[in-house]
């Protein structure tokens, strides 16, 4: 089976709110142009297209179909979609190349989180019989998770502020002086609402060498899922990330892009992945800087790959999550080879 590499990455400007259409198609047109320009590829060179998005963000059924126009999908193309973070679309594309069906694939994720009330929309990801009918919001559920770790002594409010401070010009004590947004979470503990999109180009390693000097070779990719029953999980850990990591070789990684929409989730992930203090965490700013729904996980993989392309990293770990409080986790290892 051919080895697969990441040959290109582009992302939309991540903003609090765009004026564009609810399905976000205009965020895609420029980043497709950008990634084609960077890689020297064109639409005709792409063997498979796969996207991640959600109808619940757009408030309409089959919303991804309008976005397919941004590809220029006539004459017909080979295309697929996942109703979750586009990191899982990347997994599908990786499989297509592994199976020898195609040599190249373009993966994209997009969403206009600002169109609806995001933390309420996300209640639709929960158990439809006994949880969604209560409309618990994503921030409240994360707050329950954060408190479990605080009370178990696994992290302190100061630890959380230290994670947040990395991306701001404020110091930890200033952050701790701010009021609670949803006790025990403060604003700085919560990822911002972001409209955005990202695109990644995958190819066989041989093909990638013609496109970039230092392809980011995918030397491992694993994903696992935890129980959807929130009250049956130990929310202070991420067993699915631990199991995914155990199946991978993370030794020697110098950089990690972690998809943690809440400060305490970064600490859970660092533990689950057993990352040492010498590993550079989220040089891109991570989801706390910008959390475009359904592309933030894909963007972690793209950001890690971009740092291998530039020579800044030799071996990087990229993590993506989907669902409530780190329910589903995908871990990718990228290496300059």
């Amino acid at each position: 089976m051919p080895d697969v590499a990441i040959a290109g990455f582009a992302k939309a400007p991540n903003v609090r709110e765009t004026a564009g259409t609810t399905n976000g198609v205009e965020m895609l047109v420029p980043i497709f142009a950008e990634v084609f320009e960077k890689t020297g590829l064109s639409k005709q060179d792409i063997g498979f297209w796969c996207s991640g998005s959600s109808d619940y963000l757009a408030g309409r059924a089959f919303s991804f179909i309008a976005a397919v126009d941004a590809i220029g999908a006539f004459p017909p193309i080979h295309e697929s979609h996942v109703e979750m973070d586009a990191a899982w679309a990347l997994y599908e594309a990786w499989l297509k190349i592994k199976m020898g069906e195609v040599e190249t694939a373009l993966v994209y994720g997009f969403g206009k989180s600002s169109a609806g009330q995001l933390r309420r929309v996300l209640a639709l990801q929960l158990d439809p019989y006994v949880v969604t009918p209560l409309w618990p919001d994503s921030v409240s559920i994360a707050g329950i998770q954060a408190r479990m770790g605080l009370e178990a002594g696994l992290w302190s409010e100061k630890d959380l502020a230290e994670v947040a401070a990395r991306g701001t010009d404020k110091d930890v004590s200033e952050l701790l002086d701010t009021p609670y947004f949803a006790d025990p979470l403060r604003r700085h503990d919560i990822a911002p609402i972001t409209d955005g999109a990202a695109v990644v180009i995958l190819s066989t390693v041989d093909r990638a060498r013609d496109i970039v000097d230092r392809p980011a070779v995918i030397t491992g990719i694993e994903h696992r899922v935890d129980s959807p029953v929130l009250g049956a999980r130990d929310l202070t850990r991420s067993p699915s990330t631990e199991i995914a990591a155990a199946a991978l070789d993370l030794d020697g990684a110098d950089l990690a892009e972690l998809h943690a929409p809440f400060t305490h989730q970064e600490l859970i992930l660092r533990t689950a992945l057993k990352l040492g203090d010498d590993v550079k965490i989220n040089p891109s700013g991570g989801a706390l800087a910008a959390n475009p729904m359904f592309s933030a996980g894909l963007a972690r993989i793209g950001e890690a790959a971009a740092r291998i392309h530039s020579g800044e990293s030799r071996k990087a770990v990229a993590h993506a999550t989907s669902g409530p409080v780190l329910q589903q986790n995908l871990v990718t290892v990228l290496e300059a080879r």
Partner: protein
Amino acid sequence: MTETPLAAPLNVGFDYTRSTGPVLGRFVNALRERRIEGIRGSDGRVHVPPVEHDPGTAEQLSEFVPVAEEGTVVSWSWCPEPLDGQPLSRPFAWALVRLDGADTAMLHAVDAGAPENIHSGQRVRVKWADDTVGHIRDIAYFLPVDAEDTTPTESAPPVAEREEGAPVSVIITPVHLRYQHSASPEESRYLRGLAEGKLIGQRCPACEKVYIPPRGACPTDGVPTTDEVELPDTGIVTTFCIVNVPFLGQRIKPPYVAAYILLDGADIAFLHLVLGCDAQDVKMGMRVRAAWKPREEWWTSLENISHFEPTGEPDAAYETFAHHL
């Protein structure tokens, strides 16, 4: 193209209707009788709410276990500004509550008044809804065990319709979401044109095809359409169907014709009505013209055209529109 795109509130809603099956069905039927039942897992642990399969072994589970309506807060977060549909409209705590006799915790609301009044380890009890119907909302919320129970429960959304006394086999969850829906700049030009009685298409800069409504991106080239093209209100029927079936919300008495209309000069057809002749007389290639509503009824909508009707001109030859089918 510097005008602000059109935007408007979009409220969508539906009743999410689901069959319950033997495990959740038993759970909600018990709730209707103000009892809570869990289920014993393969390892002996009692799951509340009950799960259909053991999370460890995937074994199908069937041993129901009654549990108490009192329990302990495992963890909580404060909700200072409740959102639509949440169990309480005054500030409250979300909590994981482990009921006595259960080994897993359930997520629900605790009416604690203020964050100072709740802590992990706190004892809480169920506050039942005034009317129980066989739904998770039969548990209105939880109260600290020693709290006075004086506040009437807030009415939950309608959750089930069934015969009096019949067992619960279906639950309904109303889903209502509010969006601010935005049109693209291209669509906004088209909609604003309609308000002035104009049909504005746009041309793709790459393939020169004219689209109406215009596109955020040409499906052939992936680039936004740009050049504005004002189209006449005449065209042809490319294909059509005769609607014979009555349905909810139908505004015209069947039979009538829904057709793809290709305006003269356009490269894409849109769906509209063909009236003004017998449904049996509509043909592929038939020449039609827009019948506009009175000017005072116009707004940013294709509804300004009431329907299309035959012009009486000779039909277009099939070869002239075959590639638009």
